[in-house]
């Protein structure tokens, strides 16, 4: 039967027109509209249950539209656990109204008395007769005005509400078909990438919006995909066809910013917060605290400190905006679409109604992240380019700029009189506000003065009967950008209340739970405390029990709170009680939260599983905040840019969790999104007290803080292992990180030794005869066979790497090479007449290659490895000369060397040559195989392996004999031993050398990285026979290592040694940095992770090098080998970690993995 379309709607009148809450139509589907959004908590499911219940419809016939500004009512931001408790109320009444209307119409249709019909599964029924809802509204458009007095279904009749219901969004999420905001595609969209100012995460002060000095668009306009650079005040962004192009352009755009002013001293957090301007506001002044505190027989003063935290959404924020000719559409993952729309209207100076914000799910946010900011970014860029623009923030941008969960200081004083809680004073400082939209601040649309807010008063009133109280919140502006985060100020306030009451109980010699109950008047609260203690296996005590088993101390703690949200005095959400168990390692200070029992009273439960999931989430997330999380700062700004320096709780660390939901179906539903987080810090601190007798009053309770509190001493690392810290070069201090012309990520080490100058430098004093310039022969004069051979020699000599600046013209020289004696630049080896080899005769070339004498007669610096090239055969030398003439000529002068006195005098090199140069091609050994002799030639002559792998003497000459190829630090890197016992013990073999030189990988022994990766890439020009020959020769240089693979025992022994050393290091921030930044690839959880490091750290040459610089180089630059190699990439951390962090990390890794750095 087909019906004429009809529908029934419940609405209310609002300023902008009708706001619809619920519709039901002849398709048989109810659609609910709610201004709040699903932050990943499953609220969509709970709201669907409410509609299904009131309408007596099956759940699969209910849909929810959440947060779209053009369709949903404005119900404020999705905060304070209000969705079920407050914003779902009109939805429920709307459901009741439609139900009532359908009941009347159904009764009429069935000729039945209204009071005798029943509603079930979308039908009105009377005895045997029934009629489907749809048929009751066919062809009609019925509109009902929302009536908040409309009677709703009594809880005793509930069939859907109160039953566990599977999440409606999960099936699509497990298949990848659920569209998150990050997955939305808009036709013709282009991509924006923002460039944020250097005052990361700050939002007040005159410099905000006024720090951008200049940028050079011309420098990037030719880059692929370029569309525009857009500036509005301190807002700066680029737009390109693809996201990776936009990012590359943003990275390359030269930008000059003013240096931001310093932050207050964030290391002395509590003092800094107290010293900021603030306005005291008294929230409770019952009795006479000033007099009563003097009457107390036990009196305590305490301070509790809460750190800054990050919301830490697992997906960085993303948005798409389409300016759409002044009628913008914004696709957003906002927590507060209507508030966002007002901000965007202000930003673009448009009427709110002209903006359509379409809300999609994003990564969970737990408060205010960058979801709104990125909408402002996208809209500005879209207006500028007239096309839809998508902006995906990076992890670093999200970390640095999200409004943080604010630090908080609670100063408490109170006491006992006759064993009772007699007086209590709390002063709470909470430097946070609502986090104004960043685009408004950066563009100067709103002024950057400090904006105080009033959200420090959540759960600031202690729940106990105390005759004399003075409760004061100090309203203040943020110090760094901050906004609400799960538990808001209630969590820290409860940290203070619930630790302090625990201290008083101990002073009174009473059980902490009994002491609390003795001061609770509200029977519902008392019930929760009593039931939670009983079901949570609370063990009564009158003081810390200090239970010990070996090095571990065990304890149990209790805390509870009613989360109060909204403007003071606020509204109570669910009340939660924690009973938790901890184990404290008394040697390392590590605290393990082993079990958490949560009892919770939330009135009516809509979806019991949904409530439990929220409790579990609150417990796990907050446990991490209490035990691990702590935002760091430098002098100017927020510093963490990834999980490396802001580690989250991991799976092995999470506790067992048990829950108890108090049954109260007759009471209104209370919010559950945050309540179970609120007692966390106090409960854990109280458990630590029970285990150790120590009171922790500043979170997080890291091993370092625990060791300090427990008096455990011991250095994290012996200084001898840590080694001296790397000294920052003046170049970097003046110019920042090394640019591409300097030694960069590619070609560093080898380049450091090569280079020199084949062309005459102006300052050089020729002392040899000059060879007259002549036109070099044309490439066409040479046979293809000769050129093919020359190509191989060129590859084996790895010439291109050192004679090319990354990103510059191939083989045109100019790569800066810093030697102990000064900086020299590699020369132009293209056949350019004036600046390259185009006017060099073969004689001149041969002399330079073999004797280090330039065409003009001046001596070359010995960084150019002519001592090796002297051993080349004449045929190879000529083939190379011929091949060089086929290169693309490039006109490029080689910069003069910048040598220190006396090394700037090239005549000195002549003397050097007399000492060190043995000229003449290698003579083959008759007793050795042809392959061995060929290998020797490639290794010793053309390949000049010794240039990097042999240590040098004070004059910069390679050491020979037993020291040859025994490993050497190369500027920034380490070239490991490839000969002798050291190489043999490492497990090198002929097969290993072959695999390594052919593919870049030798089993789990070695993977080529840094400059060696370039060498291997160049070796791909060589035939297998040559690679085999080199392997044969190198293997023969390893005593006893000529055959066979590394024995497993060698590897195991190394691992055991590493482990033993690792245990010596006490857990600290560096260990956490390693675990979160390095662990995934270097200690992978799954053996076959295809992106894990190929070689264990205990075998890495950089780790085992005699000095830590090689490892620091890898950490800074990462590894990105040429694609011809089978090696894997590693991201670099130069832009993220400080020099000190890199030094500490290198020291930690070497101590842990190289017990005896060689």
């Amino acid at each position, binding site marked *: 039967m087909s019906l004429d379309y009809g529908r029934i709607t419940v609405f209310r009148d609002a300023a902008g027109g009708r706001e619809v809450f619920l519709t039901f139509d002849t398709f048989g589907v109810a659609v609910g509209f709610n201004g709040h959004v699903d*932050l*990943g*908590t499953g609220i969509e499911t709970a709201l669907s249950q409410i509609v299904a219940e009131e309408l007596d419809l099956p759940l699969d016939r209910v849909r929810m539209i959440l947060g779209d500004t053009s369709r949903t009512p404005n119900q404020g931001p999705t905060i304070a656990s209000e969705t079920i408790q407050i914003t779902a109320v009109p939805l429920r009444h709307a459901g009741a109204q439609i139900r009532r209307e359908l009941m009347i119409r159904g009764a009429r249709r069935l000729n039945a008395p209204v009071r005798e019909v029943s509603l079930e599964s979308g039908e009105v029924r009377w005895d045997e007769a029934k009629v489907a809802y749809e048929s009751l509204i066919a062809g009609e458009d019925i509109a009902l005005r929302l009536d908040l007095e409309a009677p709703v279904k009594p809880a005793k009749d509930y069939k859907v509400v109160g039953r566990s219901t*599977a*999440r409606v*969004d*999960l*099936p699509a*999420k*497990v*298949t*990848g*078909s*659920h569209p*998150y905001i*990050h997955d939305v595609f808009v036709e013709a969209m282009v991509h924006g990438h923002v460039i944020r100012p250097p005052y990361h995460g700050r939002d007040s002060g005159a410099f905000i919006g006024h720090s951008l000095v200049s940028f050079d668009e011309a420098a990037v306009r030719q880059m692929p995909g370029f569309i525009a650079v857009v500036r509005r005040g301190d807002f700066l962004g680029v737009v390109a066809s*693809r*996201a*990776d192009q936009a990012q590359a352009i943003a990275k390359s755009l030269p930008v000059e910013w003013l240096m931001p002013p310093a932050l207050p001293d964030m290391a002395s957090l509590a003092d800094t917060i107290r010293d900021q301007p603030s306005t005291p506001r008294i929230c409770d002044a019952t009795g006479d605290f000033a007099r009563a505190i003097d009457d107390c027989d036990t009196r305590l003063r305490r301070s509790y400190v809460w750190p800054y935290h990050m919301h*830490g*959404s*697992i*997906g*960085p924020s993303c948005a798409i905006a389409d300016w759409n000719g002044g009628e913008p559409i914004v696709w957003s993952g906002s927590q507060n679409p209507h508030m966002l729309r007002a901000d965007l209207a202000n930003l673009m100076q448009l009427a709110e109604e002209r903006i359509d914000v379409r809300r999609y*799910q*994003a*990564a*969970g946010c*737990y408060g205010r992240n960058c979801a709104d900011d990125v909408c402002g970014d996208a809209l500005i860029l879209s207006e500028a380019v007239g096309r839809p623009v998508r902006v*995906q923030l*990076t*992890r670093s941008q999200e970390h640095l700029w999200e409004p943080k969960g604010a630090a908080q200081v609670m100063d408490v004083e109170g006491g006992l009189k006759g064993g009772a809680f007699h007086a209590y004073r709390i002063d709470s400082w909470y430097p946070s506000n609502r986090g104004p939209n960043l685009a408004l601040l950066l563009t100067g649309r709103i002024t950057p003065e400090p904006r105080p807010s009033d959200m420090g008063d959540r759960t600031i009133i202690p729940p106990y009967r105390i005759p004399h109280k003075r409760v004061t919140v100090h309203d203040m502006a943020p110090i760094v950008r901050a906004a609400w985060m799960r538990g808001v100020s209630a969590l820290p306030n409860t940290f203070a209340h619930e630790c302090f009451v625990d201290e008083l109980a101990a002073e009174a010699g009473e059980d902490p739970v009994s002491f609390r109950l003795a001061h609770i008047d509200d029977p519902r609260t008392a019930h929760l405390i009593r039931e939670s203690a009983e079901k949570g296996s609370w063990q009564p005590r009158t003081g810390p029990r200090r239970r010990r088993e070996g090095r571990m101390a065990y304890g149990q703690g209790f805390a509870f709170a009613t989360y109060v949200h909204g403007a003071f005095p606020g509204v109570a959400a669910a009340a939660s009680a924690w009973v938790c168990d901890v184990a404290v390692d008394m040697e390392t200070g590590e605290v393990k939260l082993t079990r958490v029992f949560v009892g919770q009273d939330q009135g009516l439960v809509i979806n019991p*599983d949904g409530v439990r*999931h929220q409790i*579990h*989430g609150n417990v*796990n*997330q907050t446990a*991490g905040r209490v035990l691990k999380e702590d935002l760091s700062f430098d002098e100017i700004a927020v510093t963490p840019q*990834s*999980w*490396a320096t802001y580690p*989250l*709780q*991991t*799976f*092995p660390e*999470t506790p067992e969790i048990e829950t108890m939901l108090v049954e109260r179906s007759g009471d209104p539903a209370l919010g559950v999104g945050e309540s179970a987080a609120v007692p966390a810090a106090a409960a854990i601190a109280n458990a630590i007290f029970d285990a150790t007798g120590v009171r922790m009053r500043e979170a997080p309770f890291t091993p370092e803080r625990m060791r300090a509190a427990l008096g455990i001493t011991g250095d994290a690392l012996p200084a001898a292992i840590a080694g001296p810290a790397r000294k920052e070069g003046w170049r970097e201090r003046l110019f920042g990180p090394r640019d591409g012309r300097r030694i960069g990520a590619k070609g560093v080490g080898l380049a450091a030794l090569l280079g020199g100058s084949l062309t005459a430098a102006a300052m050089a004093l020729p002392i040899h005869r000059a060879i007259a310039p002549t036109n070099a022969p044309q490439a066409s004069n040479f046979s293809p066979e000769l050129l093919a051979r020359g190509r191989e020699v060129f590859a084996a000599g790895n010439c291109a790497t050192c004679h090319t600046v990354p990103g510059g013209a191939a083989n045109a020289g100019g790569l800066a090479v810093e030697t102990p004696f000064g900086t020299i630049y590699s020369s132009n080896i293209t056949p350019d007449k004036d600046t390259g080899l185009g006017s060099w005769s073969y004689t001149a070339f041969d002399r330079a290659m073999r004797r280090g004498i330039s065409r003009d007669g001046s001596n070359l610096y010995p960084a150019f490895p002519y001592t090796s090239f002297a051993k080349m055969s004449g045929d190879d030398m000529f083939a190379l000369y011929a091949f060089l003439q086929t290169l693309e000529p490039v006109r490029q002068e080689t910069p003069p060397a910048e040598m220190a006195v006396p090394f700037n005098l090239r005549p000195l090199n002549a003397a050097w040559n007399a000492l060190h140069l043995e000229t003449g091609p290698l003579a083959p050994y008759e007793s050795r195989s042809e392959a061995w002799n060929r290998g020797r030639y490639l290794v010793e002559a053309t390949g000049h392996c010794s240039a990097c792998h042999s240590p040098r003497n004070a004059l910069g000459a390679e050491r020979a004999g037993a020291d040859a190829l025994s490993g050497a630090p190369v500027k920034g890197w380490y070239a490991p031993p490839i000969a002798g016992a050291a190489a043999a013990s490492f497990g090198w073999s002929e097969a290993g050398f072959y695999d390594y030189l052919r593919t870049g990988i030798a089993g789990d022994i070695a993977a080529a990285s840094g400059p060696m990766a370039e060498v291997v890439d160049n070796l791909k020009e060589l035939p297998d026979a040559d690679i085999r020959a080199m392997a044969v020769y190198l293997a023969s240089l390893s005593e006893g290592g000529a055959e066979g693979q590394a024995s497993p025992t060698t590897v195991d022994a190394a691992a055991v040694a590493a482990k033993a050393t690792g245990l010596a290091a006490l857990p600290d921030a560096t260990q956490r940095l390693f675990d979160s930044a390095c*662990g*995934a*690839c270097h200690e992978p*959880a*799954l053996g*076959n*992770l*295809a*992106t894990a490091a190929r070689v264990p750290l205990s075998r890495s040459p950089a780790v085992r090098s005699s000095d830590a610089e090689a490892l620091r180089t890898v950490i800074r630059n990462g590894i990105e080998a040429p*694609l011809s190699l089978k090696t894997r*990439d590693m*991201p670099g951390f130069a832009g993220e970690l400080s020099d000190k962090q890199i030094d500490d990390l290198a020291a930690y890794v070497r101590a842990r993995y190289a017990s005896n750095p060689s």
Partner: protein
Amino acid sequence: MDRAIEIAVNGQTRKLLVDDRRTLLDVLRSDLAVTGPKYGCGLAQCGACTVLVDGDPARACVLRAAKADGAAITTLEGLADPSAGTLHPVQQGFVDAAGAQCGYCLNGMIMTTVALLKANPNPCEQEVREALRHNLCRCGTHKEIVASVLRAAELMGEAASQASEASA
């Protein structure tokens, strides 16, 4: 530099011209609209981008697409049986035990679990926690995720025994 590559994504061969430096994650999401793998950190720290490369788990945010040339890539979208439309047992395990809140990390959890159960079909709870130690979840869904993995192992065991009975 652009380079021609050929990868098989969920059984479908794709020929692409990609810049050397682009990550597999970027190419999957931007060029192929395969959005199951998520961008979380770009540094292999969180696991949200995990895919299978020739059956092995890989963090697609640190794997250049050009390096995957010639490989068979399986993503979250490729797990379910395309003909029957039934979920992969690991996906079903995550539905059964509600292994997600926001679900942004879910791709990594599921793909890592597929790899784990291939190597160890019957992990104990401790082994599951260890196997997921480099997968981050900010919602605190750890308990449900561990339960989902154990449920998935159970479902895979059932499927395997049914298959062996059917063939017997």
